[in-house]
């Protein structure tokens, strides 16, 4: 069964470093999303992406964050200069159409020291 895959599963980085989290959505899906979950808190929406542009973003998704679909298969989340409070589990998701079921990846745990 097709699934969303994410790499790395866990990344440790120093504060101020750039981080790129990668996702491979399900191949025929057109909508892509990033969510995050800080330990002990709710899963929060970060951004949605369709037709090579951001369709919606939350207030969390500030100028330090960016998303890209560089090669037609990967969907990346970049954090330009990580802060301690960026430590979280980041989930990628995709859907075939705008109101379709979301399929989530297993998540990438980011630890910022």
């Amino acid at each position, binding site marked *: 069964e097709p*699934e*969303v895959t994410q790499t790395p599963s866990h990344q440790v980085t120093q504060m101020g470093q750039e981080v790129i989290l990668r996702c491979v959505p399900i191949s025929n899906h057109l*909508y892509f*999303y990033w*969510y995050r979950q800080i330990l002990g*808190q*709710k*899963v*929060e*929406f970060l951004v*949605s992406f*369709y037709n090579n542009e951001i*369709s*919606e973003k*939350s207030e969390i998704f500030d100028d330090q964050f960016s998303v890209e679909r560089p090669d037609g298969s990967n969907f990346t989340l970049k954090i330009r200069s990580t802060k301690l409070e960026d430590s979280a589990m980041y*989930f990628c*998701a995709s*859907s075939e159409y*705008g*109101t379709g*079921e*979301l*399929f*989530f*990846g*297993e*998540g990438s745990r980011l630890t910022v020291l």
Partner: protein
Amino acid sequence: AQTVTQSQPEMSVQEAETVTLSCTYDTSESDYYLFWYKQPPSRQMILVIRQEAYKQQNATENRFSVNFQKAAKSFSLKISDSQLGDAAMYFCAYRSNGGAQKLVFGQGTRLTINP
């Protein structure tokens, strides 16, 4: 803004018994969707069941059913004949109709199945 609240951080149930997970939400919208997602340990979240707010009939998927009370803004999940594989974190989520798939999640309920 919409909010979703799961007041039970942890629940446990004996195998083969029935358990109900609670969820309440707050919204001023009349048309929306509600979901229950399951996240087994170290695995991805998967959709268990979804309910359209305009439908009065409660959604059912095999052993999983919901009790949707629109006026009370309540959306509980009932798991019948609990199995060991049901052990997971369960998240209740809300989505407005239309627009991007911006889900608003509850805090989650960790369900343990006792053999």
